[in-house]
């Protein structure tokens, strides 16, 4: 009779233990960040892998999202005779929500999965333990640069996403559908606040970057050193990151924009 309850308890305890492991792990990683400042080339390489190689998918998605947003909003707004506020609508939804969240989801799929697979495979092929053998701390040498690169990349990618998305909305709204260009920009500027909207969006993307990269490096480092284990860890990275991004987005939105 108590079996189902026991199972719930067991699952909860396991999740809690894993969270504890992940927290202890991240403390070690963060402790490994200061020495990196003297060997920044390690981070540069990872910035290339994590950030530069993600630009293509971010830019293409942002353009598509911005254009679709412009198109759909235009037809609804036209019914109210207020298609001039298209710029404001596109900019606010991108800067506040879509930019950070979609960048987070894409980042988890593009960069997070790659990080997990790479670290997991390093573990499976015993590269990490051979590093330990040579008295090189794999957390400092392998994990910390990737973590730092992920955190630095996310806000930049999110800023690019919002900017490219707004350009996409501009192309469709002004170029294709004939919204007045001046009204598009001026109403946007009048209603988008730098601190309340853009800076909060950036904070969001920074938080998402920390969460996604944390999940990615932990899952990779914690993966079972088998082919199946690495594949499962990669899968978990993408799924957990997506859930975490959506959940934290709700919380952050409520905290940031709930007041007014």
């Amino acid at each position, binding site marked *: 009779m108590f079996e189902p309850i026991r199972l719930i308890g067991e699952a909860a305890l396991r999740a809690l233990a894993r969270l504890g492991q992940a927290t202890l792990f991240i403390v070690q990683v963060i402790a490994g960040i200061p020495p990196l400042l003297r060997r920044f080339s390690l981070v540069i390489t990872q910035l290339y892998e994590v950030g530069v190689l993600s630009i293509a998918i971010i830019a293409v998605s942002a353009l598509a999202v911005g254009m679709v947003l412009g198109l759909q909003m235009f037809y609804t707004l036209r019914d109210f005779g207020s298609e001039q506020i298209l710029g404001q609508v596109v900019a606010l939804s991108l800067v506040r929500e879509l930019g950070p969240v979609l960048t987070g989801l894409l980042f988890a799929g593009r960069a997070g999965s790659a990080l997990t697979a790479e670290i997991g495979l390093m573990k499976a092929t015993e590269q990490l333990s051979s590093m330990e053998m040579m008295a090189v701390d794999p957390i400092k040498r392998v994990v910390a640069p990737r973590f730092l690169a992920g955190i630095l990349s996310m806000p930049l*990618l999110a800023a*690019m996403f*919002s900017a490219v998305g707004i350009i996409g909305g501009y192309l469709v709204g002004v170029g294709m559908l004939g919204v007045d260009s001046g009204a598009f*920009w001026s109403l946007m500027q009048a209603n988008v606040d730098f601190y309340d909207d853009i800076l909060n969006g950036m904070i969001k993307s920074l938080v998402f970057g920390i969460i996604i990269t944390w999940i990615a490096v932990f899952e990779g480092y914690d993966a079972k050193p088998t082919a199946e284990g690495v594949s499962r860890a990669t899968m978990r990275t993408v799924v957990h990151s997506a859930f975490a991004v959506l959940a934290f987005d709700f919380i952050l939105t409520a905290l940031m924009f709930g007041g*007014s």
Partner: protein
Amino acid sequence: MYTRMTEIAVGCFVAVGLAALVMLAMKVSNLGAFSDTDGYTVSARFENIGGLKVRSPVRLGGVRIGRVNAISYDQDRYEAVIEMTIGNSYDRLPVDTAANIFTSGLLGEQYIGLEPGAEEDYLASGDVIELTQSAIIIEQLIGHFLLNESQAE
């Protein structure tokens, strides 16, 4: 050579990301046009402020010169108190300037429209605008209109 190319690519990445942020700041938000931090604060009392909100614009002759800073209610006088910040470059508003609450368009946002008076003295920080006119509430207008119609019959 590989690391050199990598470094160049990362440099471009960071530069493009920061450029996007600057574009968001200057082109998308109001940071380039009007800075809310430097300005002086004046207040005004209204019977009814309608849909005015914090951050609503303050306009002078249609030009945005400031924004609403705080909204509160004075229980002693039963009036709403609006505090607004006006940009430092607009420091020559006469003390008998009038403040009205207007709506831009039929369904647009509400804003405070200032109309300069004729006094020699200028408003300074902490001053109160005495001449005010409340927001026009469409429901009240319709109510008055219907009442007049029915009385005429």
